[in-house]
């Protein structure tokens, strides 16, 4: 297969598209929070607001049939990979029209048609899923991406899978969304050596720290990693530094974070960073406003559709334990 690298610089329309994708995720999360408080989202949910640039930048470097494995903080992973917000939202609300029929819920979304191998509730699980997908991808000329957090780099999964991918030269890209906390615990307190890229380097895997709040910085690093993978030159690790705007999950007010730190990161909201870039590119405010409206409408529609959808009827469902 010939490997053509997509250009890191894009046409203005593409810039707007990235922005729109990030906004889609942001508004999705806003709705999730609202719907959670209304009792429509059940159990728990982990919002990724603030981290949108990472999945959007990464997925902009992928072909539609490449694979992505995300996490319990996975709404952005799914949306960036192409999952329909309608079916994602319905899933979150436990409705029969959800992408998994309401069986999976917020933490475990799977969307095979869009190459979303799954979102994984076990910290580190996405790393294994993508590593395995990369075994398949190698045959197909495809690439498999794992999304995971800083905390996941302390899991055996991380170590075993990165080494495994390296020795088998798998076409995998390991994307660490370093948001500097695992639940309530600061990353530096639990990460020996304090540096994630050097862990990959120890396996002989090229690694790079990326501004995870700049979607184009992420895109550029991802393009290089994806090209390396497709050319048979093995895995790459990207450490995308970013920040979550909310607490770890619905129950967490995130009081453990110093206000100055939060301020600093809010000032670098990836949507603001992107808007500044759009302005630099000479894209008119009007055009941006149109995107804003379109995305808002899309989310609105998804919410309406989901709320109107039925819950699965246990008496009518005919689930099978095994594939036939």
């Amino acid at each position, binding site marked *: 297969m010939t490997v053509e690298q997509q250009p890191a610089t894009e046409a203005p329309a593409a810039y707007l598209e990235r922005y729109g994708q990030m906004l889609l995720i942001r508004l999705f999360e806003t709705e999730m929070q609202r719907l959670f408080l209304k009792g429509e989202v*059940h*159990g*728990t949910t982990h919002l990724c607001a603030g981290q949108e640039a990472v999945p959007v930048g990464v997925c902009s470097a992928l072909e539609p049939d490449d694979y992505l494995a995300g996490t319990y903080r996975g709404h952005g992973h799914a949306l960036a990979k192409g999952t329909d917000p309608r079916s994602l939202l319905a899933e979150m609300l*436990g*409705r*029969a029209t*959800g992408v998994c*029929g*309401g*069986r*999976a*819920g*917020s*933490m*475990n979304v799977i969307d095979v048609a869009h190459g979303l191998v799954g979102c*994984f*509730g*076990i*910290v*580190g699980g996405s790393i294994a899923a993508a590593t395995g997908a990369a075994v398949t991808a190698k045959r197909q000329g495809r690439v498999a991406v794992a999304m995971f957090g800083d*905390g*996941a780099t*302390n*899991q*055996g999964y991380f170590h075993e899978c990165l080494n495994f991918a390296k020795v088998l030269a798998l076409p995998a890209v390991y994307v660490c969304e370093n948001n500097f906390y*695992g*639940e*309530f*615990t600061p990353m530096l*307190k*639990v*990460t020996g050596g304090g540096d994630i890229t050097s862990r990959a380097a120890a396996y002989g895997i090229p690694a790079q720290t990326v501004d995870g709040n700049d979607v184009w910085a992420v895109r550029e690093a991802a393009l290089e990693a994806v090209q390396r993978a497709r050319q048979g030159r093995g895995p790459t690790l990207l450490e995308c530094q970013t920040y979550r705007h909310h607490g770890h*999950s619905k*129950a*967490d007010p995130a*009081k*453990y974070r110093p206000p100055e730190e939060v301020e600093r990161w809010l000032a670098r909201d990836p949507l603001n960073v992107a808007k500044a870039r759009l302005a630099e590119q000479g894209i008119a405010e009007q055009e941006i406003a149109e995107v804003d409206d379109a995305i808002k409408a899309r989310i609105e529609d998804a919410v309406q559709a989901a709320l109107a959808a039925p*819950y*699965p*009827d*246990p*008496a009518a*469902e005919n*689930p099978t*334990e095994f594939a036939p």
Partner: protein
Amino acid sequence: MSDTLEFRVAIRTAIVEEMERDESVVFFGEDIAAEQGGVFAVTPGIQEIFGAERVFDTPISELAITGAAFGAAVTGLRPIIEIMFGDFMGLSMDSLVNQSAKYWYLSGEQHAAPMVVRSAVGGGGRFGAIHSQTHATWFQGIPGLKIAFPSSPAEAKGLLKAAIRDDNPVIFLEHKRLYSIKGPPPQSAEEVIPLGRANVARPGRDLTIVSVGKGVPDALQAAAQLAENDGIEAEVVDLRTLRPLDLETVLESVARTNRLVAVEEGPATGGWASGLLGLVAEHGLHDLDDAWLLTTGELPIPYSPTLEDAFIPGAEAIASSVRERAGVASAR
């Protein structure tokens, strides 16, 4: 002492009391020392009392946490660890099964591995398939491990104290849907409930309902309904531990009632309930006039509320299963 004890407070109190009593007890896990005291807010402020040498947060490394507890236990400490959700216990399994469980026997009884592994388990909270499992049956067939699964605040406190004092590795299950339950406190603060002795939580003559953990309050509620509405007097046996298994108490009960239903929040195939029934059949076949299981389907636990509610057998399901099997039309 307050009149009622909350389940999560019972857990915390047991830990605090035992740490005060024995300074070889240490406690660690993910986010257990952080301000909130774990994701279920069970252990806040314990690090403040005992200091960071005895109570500390760890990296997200279930295998290391469990392995470290093992190594510490066999060299003289008595670690309590938290593996946040029981679902994550697969990551811990090797160390528990191949190290802790076998140490006492393999060492020729030189030393045991006194440690407690606490986890939140069970469904009903809409946490989905990977945060709702009950891992007891993964470990029930492992000699050398004890498995405790309390059913009320007082039981939780007494069993956890026993687990901490026990010289063997104890897997300790805390059902999520019990954390906010309040109940009468133990008779005395010092009460320790021995591991391996089932409890007749309610006497009755017509049938025996056996369960453990949250299944026990469900069974008690069902038994109350059955008594009130159907004139059926169900005896409720709380197993308390799934290993060792107190078969004697169950057999004694069945000898009186001749009917047995075992209620498990999990599938029938490979569950503890079917195994219990099998042991009763082996040792008390001729006392049995009827025996059956009330379990979940053979599926993962679904997220959607309608599906999850239908999936998990609660008090209603127990009561109606008893009525149906007993051929009683509900009085209601």
